[in-house]
């Protein structure tokens, strides 16, 4: 397959950037999207050019580091699929593909397609955990959790922190990401003692990072590779109201 990649090139955080076109004449439909970039980078390196910087780690859809915007869509055209799990066969011979970094004031571009997503880490630090004294693991059956609650908590726990929700949101809002933490931890008995303080701290940290607010456009959930639903945002709003009104 012959593809043309138009890629955002930017030498550093404070440098200006622009879209640069590259031809890849020998793309294999069975390659993953990151392998397509690898092939391009090998060639650029051999030619003595500067390879395209992009973030990646697991390449199996679980670490959350690989996100880029492909043709205006975070993680590209396939639903519930990270960039690393996307294949070249999702495109057609002769396609021109635009590849851009996540755009949000809270995610500065470090180089080319790589952005600084540490704002999400600071949100996690503010409340995306339970405080448990370490020691031997408690007997799981001693804390029963109803099946629907366990399922919903698990679904929300599948968030990989990729930031596609922020990238897709017209307001650069991190509500979906933050809501996944609240919907996960606040619904479980282990999270109950910190239920109020967790949501208050998470939202304060989220706002402090400069992320925008939620206008319920639903672009986040559409882009999310893990299918975190809008319902989690309603849950976050409900938990925040409850905590603000002082109910424990």
């Amino acid at each position, binding site marked *: 397959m012959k593809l043309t990649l138009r890629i955002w090139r930017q030498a550093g955080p404070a440098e200006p950037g622009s879209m640069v076109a590259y031809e890849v004449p020998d793309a294999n439909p069975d390659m993953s999207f990151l392998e397509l970039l690898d092939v391009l980078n090998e060639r650029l390196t051999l030619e003595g050019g500067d390879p395209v910087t992009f973030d990646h780690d697991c390449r199996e859809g679980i670490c959350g580091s690989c996100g880029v915007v492909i043709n205006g869509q975070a993680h590209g055209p396939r639903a519930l699929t990270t960039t690393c799990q996307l294949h070249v066969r999702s495109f057609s011979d002769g396609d021109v593909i635009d590849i851009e970094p996540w755009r949000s004031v*809270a995610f500065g571009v470090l180089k080319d397609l790589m952005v600084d997503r540490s704002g999400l880490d600071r949100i996690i630090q503010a409340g995306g955990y339970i405080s448990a004294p370490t020691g031997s693991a408690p007997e799981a059956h001693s804390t029963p959790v109803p099946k629907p609650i366990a399922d919903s908590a698990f679904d929300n726990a599948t968030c990989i922190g990729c930031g596609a929700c922020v990238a897709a949101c017209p307001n650069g809002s991190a509500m979906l990401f933050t809501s996944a933490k609240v919907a996960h931890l606040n619904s479980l008995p282990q999270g109950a003692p910190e239920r109020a303080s967790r949501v208050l701290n998470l939202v304060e940290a989220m706002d402090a990072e400069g992320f925008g607010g939620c*206008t319920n456009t639903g672009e986040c959930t559409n882009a999310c590779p893990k299918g975190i639903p809008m319902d989690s945002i309603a849950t976050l709003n409900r938990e925040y109201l409850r905590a603000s009104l002082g109910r424990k």
Partner: protein
Amino acid sequence: MNFWRSTIGKKTVMAVTGLLMLLFLIVHMLGNLKIFFGRTDFDHYAHWLRTIGNPVLHESWYLWIQRFVLVVAVVLHAVSAYQLSRRDLKARPTKYSHHQRAKAGYATHIMRYGGITLALFIVYHILDFTTLTLNRHGVDGAAYDNVVSSFSVWWVTVIYIAAMICLGLHIQHGFWSAAQTLGYNRPSRDRAFKGMATGLAVLLTAGFLIVPVSVLAGLVD
């Protein structure tokens, strides 16, 4: 105070004030329909509005309390909208060079412009029928004739049509959005809230517009 400073807190203020205005608009729309019972009935109704709460409340006191609450609601709604919108625009300064295909519908997309249009319309509407400054007939107490005199002019009716379409779109996104903001929405209720939002939007737009359109068509004169 932390609540007001947070994005979710401001959004909650928007939802509550929006729903309060919506409640008023439903009653207002239904009251307007009394015009189809004729001049005596409508003018009597307009007069009665000034006597609500009598004899506990003095003449027009209830009306002034309601006006005060509504002005506070409009101001809080608009201030939150302005502050949140500014924040949202700052949070996403760079557009993608490849245009994003929006998943959200037109009603969601137009909330800010529609809201500004509504704010301008509210001022115009008050100058037209409350203060009577812009009203051609403009006789205090002659509500029926004041209404007919305004809507007999085609471009006044056009302004009202445009504003009420904005209102319908605003409510279509806003009502569902408020259910989401206040945490009432659940997957099992989502369709019902969306349906109610569309129902309320159509009901209010049609209910408000039937009056000016009937006047212009000569059905009410």
